[in-house]
């Protein structure tokens, strides 16, 4: 195959670390369980199907350190089995409730098959650890798995302390290597948040490439000749790949994009809200009406009236949309290649959770897209950024501007009246742990314990998700509490390390709760890589 251009699908998979052993159940842990149910396991199923059928496909996925930590956490693994079992039990009740309903009974039957298969996948195939599946596909060359800041810290607003960037990157590379067995070649900068100079630090960690929003390349200095269709070499060394606006919009747009099609499953309607029965109540958290994942309606239209969901119709539509998307990419690369001295690359990055969780049929769309790309045409070939760099490595050097992929293109989503109060605390804590890392270069025993846990607390507080949630008003109180809790814990632990007075019970309790990064070393908060 001698394609006219290349297509690079990039899926950014991330959730903040939510882990509450102090509770039997915790509502916000459902974020992870929903993503496993609707995105990560279905994607693995799709990838393995294509591998089995000998389909050429290449996908770049970022599996962030908090997500990898949750995927490998024994408590969350067990709780997810319980989550699946609760749903299977609830489905039994739903089958009885709908037995005389010709519209909704088939949908419930569909969920029974689906959840049964999900349980088989999770328990029998992956033995509770889905990273096994991703790792194998990476080792077989289908997936390029890249990393992200240790807790998804938004670099443009944390870069005032360079030590923070080193810490975020050190722990990211360590975690990636510990769980996936190799060092990452690329990184997804949280929220595509880039600030000049970050490239130099990335190079110190052996990172070869990262991604920016379209304007990160289009506004680079000097202006790149081929825009986002060829990466640029940053002054620090790593390549920056720019998002292709056209292909992004076709999928991202809720109105004009594919996910808004009326045949697809409606996100907001859920048996958790619609059905008041004991078997649904069993899935709720202390009586709070919340999502169960049993969604029986299709989008239908803008009004409140929703028709029953029809899985086969939705599958057929996903195939049509994949064909349409591929056709547009063919047209795009045909046009671009006539103006370029080498094949163009079309980089299409998305949140992984868009596929499956938001757009239920998204994983099927990916399945059809790569099968059609491999079998139905010769214009476009799937590629990873690293493969593209190896084939067409002589890149223009340009300096991208500060940018992000948030609304407005800069820092406004993470810095506004709802969340700007967090930064003085984050910056102060970063200064303090950096000073402690200098002052106590070889801490051991209780002091080492306290400093390592303080470093965990600060990294957790730095997660961009909290500021995002405060802005978008979804689970605000939780985000506020998490930020404050980590700041309090950080201060108490830092006080202990300084004073030499240790509360062992407290140390044990906080280490049990905020347990990610078992290989933590507080000295990551210094201006040098520690991996």
């Amino acid at each position, binding site marked *: 195959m001698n394609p006219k251009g290349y297509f690079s699908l990039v899926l950014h998979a991330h959730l903040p670390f939510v882990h509450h052993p102090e509770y039997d159940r915790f509502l916000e842990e459902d974020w992870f369980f929903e993503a496993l149910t609707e995105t990560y396991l279905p994607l693995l199923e799709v990838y393995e199907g294509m591998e089995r059928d000998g389909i050429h496909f290449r996908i770049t996925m970022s599996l962030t350190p908090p997500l990898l930590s949750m995927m490998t956490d024994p408590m969350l693994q067990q709780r997810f089995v319980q989550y699946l079992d609760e749903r299977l039990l609830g489905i039994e009740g739903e089958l009885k409730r709908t037995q005389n309903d010709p519209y909704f009974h088939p949908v419930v039957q569909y969920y029974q098959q689906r959840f049964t298969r999900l349980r088989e996948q999770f328990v029998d195939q992956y033995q509770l650890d889905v990273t096994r599946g991703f790792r194998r596909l990476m080792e077989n060359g289908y997936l390029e798995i890249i990393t992200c800041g240790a807790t998804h810290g938004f670099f443009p607003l944390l870069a005032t302390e360079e030590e923070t960037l080193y810490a975020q990157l050190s722990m990211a590379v360590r975690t990636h290597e510990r769980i996936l067995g190799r060092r990452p070649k690329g990184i997804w900068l949280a929220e595509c948040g880039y600030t000049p100079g970050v490239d130099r630090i990335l190079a110190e960690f052996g990172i070869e490439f990262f991604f920016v929003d379209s304007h990160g390349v289009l*506004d680079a200095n000097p202006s790149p000749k081929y825009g986002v269709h060829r990466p640029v070499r940053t002054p620090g060394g790593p390549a920056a790949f720019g998002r292709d606006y056209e292909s992004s919009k076709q999928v991202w747009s809720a109105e004009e*994009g594919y996910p808004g099609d009326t045949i697809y499953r409606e996100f907001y309607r859920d048996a958790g809200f619609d059905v008041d029965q004991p078997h649904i109540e069993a899935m709720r958290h202390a009586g709070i009406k919340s999502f169960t994942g049993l969604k029986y309606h299709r989008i239908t239209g803008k009004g409140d009236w929703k028709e029953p969901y029809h899985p086969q119709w939705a599958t057929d539509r996903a195939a049509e949309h994949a064909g349409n998307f591929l056709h547009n990419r063919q047209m795009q690369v045909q046009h671009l290649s006539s103006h370029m001295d080498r094949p163009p690359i079309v980089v299409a990055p998305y949140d992984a959770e868009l596929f499956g*969780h938001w757009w239920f049929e998204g994983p099927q769309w990916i399945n059809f897209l790569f099968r059609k790309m491999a079998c139905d045409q010769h214009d476009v070939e799937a590629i990873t950024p690293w493969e593209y760099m190896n084939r067409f490595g002589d890149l223009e050097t340009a300096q991208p501007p500060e940018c992000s992929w948030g609304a407005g293109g800069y*820092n406004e989503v993470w810095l506004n009246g709802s969340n700007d109060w967090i930064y003085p605390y984050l*910056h102060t804590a970063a200064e303090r742990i950096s000073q402690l890392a200098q002052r106590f270069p070889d801490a051991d025993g209780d002091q080492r314990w306290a400093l390592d846990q303080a470093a965990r607390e600060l990294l957790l507080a730095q997660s961009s998700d909290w500021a*995002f949630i405060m802005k978008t008003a979804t689970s605000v109180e939780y985000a506020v509490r998490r930020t404050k809790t980590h700041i309090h814990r950080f201060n108490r632990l830092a006080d202990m390390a300084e004073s030499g007075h240790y*509360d062992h019970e407290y140390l044990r309790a906080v280490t049990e709760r905020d347990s990610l990064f078992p290989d933590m070393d507080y000295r990551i908060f210094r201006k040098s890589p520690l991996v």
Partner: protein
Amino acid sequence: MNTKSVKELKEIASGLGITGYSKLRKDELLKAIAAVKAKSPSSKKGAAAKKAAKKSATPAKAGKKKTAKKAAKKKTAKKATPKPKAETVVRNLADQNEEELIESAKFITMAPGTAALRGQYPPDLGEDIDNLPALPEPRLTFLPQKPGVLLARWHLEPGQSQQTALMLRLGVLADQKFYIKQETPVDADDGSHYFHVDPSWPIESIYLQIGYFNAGGEFVIALRRGTVRLPRLFAHTALGVNWAVTNEEFEHEILQSGPLGQVPQRALASGLSSYDLARAGALSSSGMLRKG
């Protein structure tokens, strides 16, 4: 209500059960209080009410507390048991762009726009979750929001803002001269202000300070221990250089630019431009001549 101090407004807000009031600025407090007072079934759709409710949007989680460890138990003994709390989750979807809406779906636990009972889970290790720990010293935070918009956030000693008329001022250093561009009064110990500036300014040279005018009309920098951070909005090739300005460096620059706030009469008579006057510290951001 406008005549009340921030402290008084915070007390009112606290009494009205407005969450997060301690972080609100005066204008936000006024809006939030007005919104809550005006709240009635017919005013639910009011923008102010929405905004206030959005700001105070709450909650987390109800859950059965597990048997906690000894230590945790000891510390939580004083804490209240989780109480279900009525909350209306208000999300103005029109405020969000599509990608934001989709991304935020990851964090939705209930359908937006619905009312529900949610519980507040207690901080189980004794954290004083309603208050943040005090910062170790007064601090100025200076961050870029987007081209042309900069956040200044200050944290002063308790009561410091009431002792004297403090001023937050933004200036540019160019050709070794300090030009005052904008000023705003500081009427609370903790607060923030978004400066709208000309994106074409030389970004390496934008400075922020909090201070006051002494009897002689000189501007005295009050926040000597505060660290000013310089943002970068546009392309640069290095990071870490000139991000922090020490007090010594700052004073040196001020000295180089000459005494502030002292405008000779002849200068006024000679019809200097407002830019020149501002440079000398004689103009406030609104263009009014300052006394002294």
